[in-house]
Every structure is written in structure tokens, then in C-alpha cells.
């Protein structure tokens, strides 16, 4: 059995580790978005587009974990990209607006410093 103070200390250490890893995660998401935008600029995203699905899952994981660890700005930027990707996947062949995703990626990068 642990008391709350011990648990919070463990969670703080976990948050520090997550924050360090998140730099790489945001970088991977930025690369993934750039690749997706480059590959689909003229045709939009089709259902089952695996790169878009993978990027959505990655954004979701980052948004949820960052939120739990109190990294609100990172969480909300990742959640915005997640929702944007879901919209693109749900509305096939919508022409992808690269600038929208770029904005969310920039917000994530700013949040993680």
C-alpha cells in the first residue's frame, strides 16, 4: 500500500519521463503529418488510409497521456490534430488543408519546448 504522497512522487517521475519522450513523439507526429500532407495534397484521405489512422492513434495517445499528466497545452494541441484527422478520415476525399495540421503541430512543438 502506498500513500498519496508516494504515489504523486512516482507520478511526477513518470511525467518527467513522459515529457522527455514526448519531444520525440511530437517530432514523429510532425514528420507523419508532413508526409501525409505531401502524399495526399491533391486527393484527400480515403477511408482506411493507414498512415492517417496511425497518425490519429499517435495523436490520441499523446493527447490523453499529456492530459493526464497535466500538460494541458500539449494535450489540447494533440487532441485538435486528432479531431482534424478524424474529420479527414470520416469525410473521404476532402482536400487536405496542410496549414490546419501545421498549426496544430506548431502548437505541440511550442508546448513541448
Amino acid at each position, binding site marked *: 500500500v502506498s500513500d498519496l504522497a508516494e504515489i504523486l512522487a512516482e507520478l511526477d517521475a*513518470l511525467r518527467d519521463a*513522459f515529457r522527455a519522450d514526448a519531444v520525440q513523439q511530437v517530432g514523429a507526429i510532425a514528420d507523419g503529418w508532413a508526409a501525409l500532407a505531401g502524399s495526399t495534397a491533391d486527393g484527400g484521405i480515403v477511408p482506411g488510409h493507414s498512415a492517417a489512422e496511425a497518425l490519429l492513434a499517435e495523436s490520441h495517445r499523446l493527447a490523453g497521456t499529456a492530459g493526464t499528466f497535466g500538460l494541458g497545452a500539449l494535450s489540447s494541441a494533440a*487532441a485538435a490534430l*486528432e479531431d482534424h484527422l478524424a474529420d479527414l478520415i470520416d469525410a473521404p476525399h476532402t482536400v487536405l488543408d496542410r496549414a490546419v495540421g501545421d498549426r496544430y503541430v506548431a502548437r505541440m512543438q511550442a508546448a513541448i519546448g
Partner: protein
Amino acid sequence: VDTNKIRLLVAEDSAYMQMAIRTMVKIDPSIQIVGEVKDGSQAVEVARLLKPDIITMDVNMPGLNGIDASRRIMTEAPSVILMFSTTTDKGVARTLQALEAGATDYLSKSSSAGDMDLSSITTQLATRIRFWGLGARPYTTRRMAVPTPTPDTDLLVITGGAGSALAIGALLRDLGPVTCPVVVSHDDMASEVTLSLIDYIARTTRFAVREGGHRAPLAPGAVTVMPAGRDARVRRDEAGRWILDFHGIPPGCGPNFLRSATAAAARLTLACLSGGARQLAALAPSFAEKPVALWIQDPAECAVPDLVAEALALAFPHTRLTSAPMMPAERAA
């Protein structure tokens, strides 16, 4: 495996979230993690194999997502499922889909959405796991012994806290005929919750429902949901219609609304669900000036039982409770 413990299966594809959950549940020695899986298909398989008392489930996971996994688990190996949700538009909508698929309750991952921090997430998680793990019935199947509003009731207000959506639905489903406006005021600060709550009420109850707007009349016999994080005054206009007035009211979770409702209504009925109890202590002086029919949720029926009990003790030190899922508070003579 200790059979006296609440046996928890964690379905979560984020390694950090798995570690966080593993750390958080250490707060309660009655909780034992019996399995950890990273996708929905594994969750179904392991649930069938281990028959856990409760499963914490992420909505988005690779392969089978949390919604479809919940549906299959409830068919193949029923268990209590506590969804971890995010508070984006889509996150809340997906969470409610999961509840319709059979999930029992949800907990927000996002401490950014309100005043939650790691400490409160830890406490809430352990509290919910204990509450549901010990056999509480889901709100989706629960009946509430909701009193009938007296005929002279001219405004019915339901207050709830973050995570009260299911209990609000249960209350409205068991609420008898009402001719006055019904207003739902909840203290969840995430604006995305409001539209999802409206959608949930529309789909699961008989009530017409809409979001409250500035100077929009409150329809009699229909439900108006206060916008999340907004406070307002409620009053009657020249035509005698109830309206909300947001002008000049700072953001908040309803103190002005509840005070003005108490003052303006000839006969206010206030139904107080779990987290909504936070408002009671501040309202006590208003109640002293005018009688209010107060319905409170039985603490034993609340995921966070102490909240109601403590608020009532502060607001009404002489209040006596009877044991019913939803009942009028009685003032001791």
C-alpha cells in the same frame, strides 16, 4: 489472485497511461490489476479468460477500438467497463457511444479540462473502481425513485458534477410529467461536454432538450442545458416566460444561476446529483429565505458518496436522509 480484491483489467495502448494507472491504483489496497492489454481484441480475450470485476478501457486503441470491444465484452463476458475519455468534441461523443455499447461509466483523462490534477485523478480513479467494482449497478439500468414535482413547481433545476451525464439521464427517464421548465446545470468546465450531454438526453429520454442561450426562453416541459463553464441569472421576463441572462455574469459553474433561481421561482425544485452538491453549502442562506423542494441523490448511489454527505452536512446540519436513490431531504423538526 486474491478473490477478495477488486480484480481490474487495464486496456490501454499507451505504455505511459498503463504505468500511470498501475501507480494510481496503489492508493487502494482492495484493487488488484489482473491483466494489462494494449488493444481491444486482447481486452475481449482476456476479459473472457479472467472475468475481471472491472475494466478500464481507452476509447481509441489499435485494431478493435474501445467502443467495439465494450460491445463484444458485454455480449461475451459481461463486466463493468470504465471508459477513459478525452474532452474533445469527438472524445466525448465517442465516450457516450461506448456507454451505449455497454460501458458503465467514464473518467476524463484530461486534467486540462478542469481543475483536476494528478492527485484528483488518482482519487477519482480509485473511487470509481471501488464503487463499480463492488457491484454498483450502472446508471443506464438503474431506476431512480424520483419524486413527482408538486403542481405548483414553476422551475425544476438539476445540478450535477463532472461525470454526471449518466445520472442526469437516469433521473430524467424516471421523472414524471412536468409542466415547468427543467434546467440542467453541471460543473463540468469542458464546453464540449454540453453538446454531448444534450445529444445524450435527446437520445435516451423523452424530453426535448437544447442548450441555454442569452435571453432564450426556457420551454415549459422541456430541458435546457446550461452551457458548460457559464453562469447566468434566470428570471421571468415581462411576458412571464423564464429566460436566462448571461449579461455581465462572469464565467463559473452556476452560483448566480442557482441563487437567482431560488429567488425568482415561486416554487423551485432542486435535484442535486453527486458533484452538484458542491453548490449546496453556498445556497443554504437562500434556502433559509424561501422554501425549496430539495431532492438529493442517496450518497450510497453516488460514485463519490462523501461529496453529497459532506455538502449536506455543511448546508443543512439538521437534515435527515432516508434511504432511496433520489429523495426529498427532510428537515428535522
